[in-house]
Each structure stands twice: as structure tokens, then as C-alpha cells.
């Protein structure tokens, strides 16, 4: 534990946050460190730890100090840990919580899990060694007494500034964009954790930043955020959720109707249109009893797999013959469908040659095809 130095926890210009995990306790070798529970942060350059109760208590260590590390599985009453073996501290190391230690390793104990992901990221960073490309100076320790207000404002503005810089770099370099997303995710987690660093207003502001960056769902419980895995889960959820509404509506609903229905039901974790669309595209491959279908006009619907098109068209023809002629609106009223879907059905019947159209100033009417 004597490799750590006091830190203000602020990231440097070229330093990016990779992952953070709360509920981490530190061990000096095999002994519990006097530092209790906190948040462990991994950046491209350093390993940082901040006390959850006292935010000014923050320590950091350059990643270059790490020789190697390994996982230590948890057990009954014991949390999983990562054991990190370290080089000796350099002579010019800034002061930290421990002047001296008899151990050359520390442990990170993950009281609230997250060790798998942390371990994975640490592995990545230690492989890529990004700190070698963009060395940062050791941040000047601010000691134990910076004004609480100023730290808060500086912290947020600093991160905001980094967001701005990242934005510009994104235009030039795709890999920079990836870092951007990582940063946003960590901010999102911070919002979730509500560590008190951020006020309500700022929370809302951050959420809007995230939305503008295209991360519509800031609170994600998946370690793999918005990936295919997420869409698969979503598709299954939709499969269950939509059965009853579809049956009520004659087996077919426009995608826009589905979007409204689903988001109204969810309330909080709203789906983006892209996510809904991507999930619907997976219905067939997941062998769910639903299908996404696109009409010639571009209108997209979700329909029950059991839905039979021929039946629909035959019944459409019956309806029209019965009444002599029908407009899309009249047909919609007759069947209890939306006008959009009723029109699609009539158009399909026309395409099949069962109906023909009468287009005049009075509107568009469909007749049985007597030609």
C-alpha cells in the first residue's frame, strides 16, 4: 500500500477513465488496509481509489507500478478479490496513506461484485499500456482540505471539458470515439450511484449529454451495454409482452404503435426506436412467434406468426364486395384496425388483383376487381 500517493482524483488531459467499481476495500498485502469501502477507478494511466464516506480521501497509483495481477475467487462470507503485485515504489513518489509496507502486493476486495469486468479491463489496459503513449505528470496532491464546493465544481467542469475535447477528437479518430463511450458510461454509473458529487440539475444535464451522444438508456445493467445480447433479451421480452395486444388487434400492429405501447408500459427505461427495431429483427432467428414485416410503402408492422395473409385478403374482398366499395377509413372502422394498416391491407389485395381502385375528388375507394 505504500505505492499509492494522495490524489485529487481528477483525470489528466490524455487520461481516460476505463471503468469504475464501488464497494471495493483495499488490502495491504493480506491485511485489511485502514481505508475502508470506496470506489476503485481504473484509468488508462492509473489505479485510483476514493473513499465512499470521505470524498476528499483519494489515492492513486500509476499502472506502471503493476508487475502482474490475478483473481482470487470468493467463497462463503468472502468476496472475490484481485491481487495486484507491484514494483518497488520509485524514490520520487509523492506521499500517500502508507509510508512503508512490508508487502509488495495489494488486494482489491469486491464487496459488491464487478471483479470480472474490472479484471478484464485491467488486463486490457496492462496489455495496451496506453500510458506510455501519452505520459501524464503525477497530479499535485491537494492534501486533506480542499473546499468541498470548489472540488465539486472543478470536478464536473473538468470532466465536461474532457467531454468537449473528446468530441473534437472523435471527428478525427474512431478509436477516440470508443473512449468517449466508456467515459459516458462511467458518468452514467456515477449518476446511478448518486455519490453526491453531482447535483440534480447536473444529473439532468448529463442525461441529456448522454442522449445526444446516442446512449438513450443511461441505466444499463448489462456489462455489455447495448450489444446484440441486449437486443436478444429485449426481443424475448417483446415476444411475451406483445402476444395479447396483437391478438386484440387482429394479429397485426404498426411498429409505431408497438413503440408507444412498450414505452408507456416501461415508464422509466424507455426504448429507443433503433433498439426496438433491432430487437424486432431478431424475432425470426430466435424462433419467437412474432414477425417484423415491411410493406412496399415502407410501413413496418409486427404481426403474429400465425397471421395468415391469404385469409386477411380473402376477408378484405368479402368486406368490400359486401358493401360495394370501401375507403381505407371505412374499412378501418369496420375491422377496428388503424387507418394505416387497413390501407395497407387494401393495397395488398389490389396488388393481388382482387380489388381495383376508384381515385376521384371524392377520395380513394376500393372496389372488387370486376375487370
Amino acid at each position, binding site marked *: 500500500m505504500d505505492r499509492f500517493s494522495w490524489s485529487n482524483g481528477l483525470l489528466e488531459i490524455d487520461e481516460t477513465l476505463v471503468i469504475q467499481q464501488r464497494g471495493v476495500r483495499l488490502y495491504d498485502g493480506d491485511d485489511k488496509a485502514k481505508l475502508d469501502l470506496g470506489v476503485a477507478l481504473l484509468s488508462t494511466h492509473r489505479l485510483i481509489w476514493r473513499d465512499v464516506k470521505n470524498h476528499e480521501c483519494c489515492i492513486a497509483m500509476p499502472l506502471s507500478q503493476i508487475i502482474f495481477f490475478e483473481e482470487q475467487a470468493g467463497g462463503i462470507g468472502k468476496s472475490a478479490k484481485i491481487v495486484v503485485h507491484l514494483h518497488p515504489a520509485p524514490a520520487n513518489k509523492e506521499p500517500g496513506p502508507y509510508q512503508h509496507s512490508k508487502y509488495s502486493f495489494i488486494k482489491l476486495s469486491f464487496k459488491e461484485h464487478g471483479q470480472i469486468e474490472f479484471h478484464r479491463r485491467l488486463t486490457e489496459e496492462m496489455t495496451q499500456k496506453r500510458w506510455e503513449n501519452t505520459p501524464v505528470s503525477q497530479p499535485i496532491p491537494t492534501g486533506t482540505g480542499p473546499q468541498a464546493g470548489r472540488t465539486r465544481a472543478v470536478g464536473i467542469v473538468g470532466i465536461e471539458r474532457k467531454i468537449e475535447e473528446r468530441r473534437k477528437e472523435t471527428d478525427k479518430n474512431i478509436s477516440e470515439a470508443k473512449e468517449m463511450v466508456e467515459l459516458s458510461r462511467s458518468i452514467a454509473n456515477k449518476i446511478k450511484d448518486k455519490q453526491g458529487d453531482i447535483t440534480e440539475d447536473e444529473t439532468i444535464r448529463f442525461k441529456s449529454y448522454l442522449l445526444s451522444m446516442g446512449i438513450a438508456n443511461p441505466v444499463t445493467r448489462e456489462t455489455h451495454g447495448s450489444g446484440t445480447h441486449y437486443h436478444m433479451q429485449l426481443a424475448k421480452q417483446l415476444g411475451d409482452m406483445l402476444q395479447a395486444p396483437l391478438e386484440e388487434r387482429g394479429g397485426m400492429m404498426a411498429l409505431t404503435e408497438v413503440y408507444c405501447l412498450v414505452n408507456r408500459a416501461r415508464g422509466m427505461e424507455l426504448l429507443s426506436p433503433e433498439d426496438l427495431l433491432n430487437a424486432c429483427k431478431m424475432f425470426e432467428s430466435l424462433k419467437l412467434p412474432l414477425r417484423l414485416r415491411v410493406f412496399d410503402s415502407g410501413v413496418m408492422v409486427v404481426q403474429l406468426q400465425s397471421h395468415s395473409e391469404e385469409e386477411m385478403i380473402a376477408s378484405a374482398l368479402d368486406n368490400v364486395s359486401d358493401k360495394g366499395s370501401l375507403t381505407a377509413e371505412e374499412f378501418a372502422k369496420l375491422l377496428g384496425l388503424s387507418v394505416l394498416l387497413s390501407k395497407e391491407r387494401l393495397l395488398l389485395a*389490389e396488388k393481388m*388483383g382482387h380489388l*381495383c381502385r376508384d381515385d*376521384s375528388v371524392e377520395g380513394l*375507394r376500393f*372496389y372488387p*376487381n370486376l375487370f
Partner: protein
Amino acid sequence: MSFEWPWQYNFPPFFTLQPNVDTRQKQLAAWCSLALSYCRHHKLYTLDVMEAQESPVFNNKKIERKLSMEAIQVVFEELRKKGNLEWLDKNKSRCLVMWRRPEEWGKLIYQWVSKNGMVNSVFTLYELSNGDDTEGEEFHGLEEWMLLRSLQALQTEGRAEIITMDDGKGVKFF
């Protein structure tokens, strides 16, 4: 005898150009047939497109439907492809309507000529279209341009020859 309208004439969709290709084909066939029989009935040989839009053929006041200008052009083009119509001007505002094609007229005329044993005789055009002898024949009253076309068709077949005389044209049948 008054003109008998086909059932499609009172079917509103008849006046909307159908998007379904198969349906459209049937629709156009019906339109061509209607236009030609109407012209035949009223012995119309030329049509003015502007006037046509208001004529009862393309405008059914009873059901308040009429063919759009675009659709009329499509019908006319269809007639032209079949050989029943010829544009008189580049702007496509006036056309000749051949509800019987020149070849068909030629055949009728030749039949009459040979039936009456008049092969190898010479006729003036006037004699053929307006002569007493031809009264009662379908080609009686045929407009000159149409008669000429018909005879030209026969000429191509080698069954007649058009000759220029002092006061007009004549024809000899073989």
C-alpha cells in the same frame, strides 16, 4: 339505333388508371374497344384531344367520373400501337381514328369489286366512296384520306394501283 355503353362505363374504377399491371391491361383493352366502337357508331374519323375529354365517351356525367388527360393519352397511345390511331400533329392534339384499319377497308372494297366482276376496271375515288353503286356498302361515305390509305394498302398487296388523272386520283383493281 342508340349507342350501347359497355358495363365498364358505369363502373367508377374504369375512370381511374389502375396501378396493378394485369388489371390495367384489361382496363385499357376495354377502353380501346369502347373508343373505337363509339367512333364507328358516330362515323367519327378524327378526334381532337381537348374535345375528347368533354365528350361522353371519356366523361360519364351520371356517375360523375371522367378520364384524366394523362389517362386519355395512355388510351390513345394504346390505340396507336394497335394501328387504330395516327397523330396528325407533333403536339398530339388531333388524331385520325381508324376504327377499321386501312387493310380491313381495302379487303372490304376489293371484295365488293370482285363480287361485282369489276376487276380490271378503273374507278375514281369519288365513285367508290360516293357513287350510287356503292350505296349500302359499309365503305360508302368513307372520307377520302381513309379511302386513299385503304387503296394504298391494296396497292402494297399488289391488288390495285392508284393512278393520277386530270381531275383527281383513281384506282385500278387487279
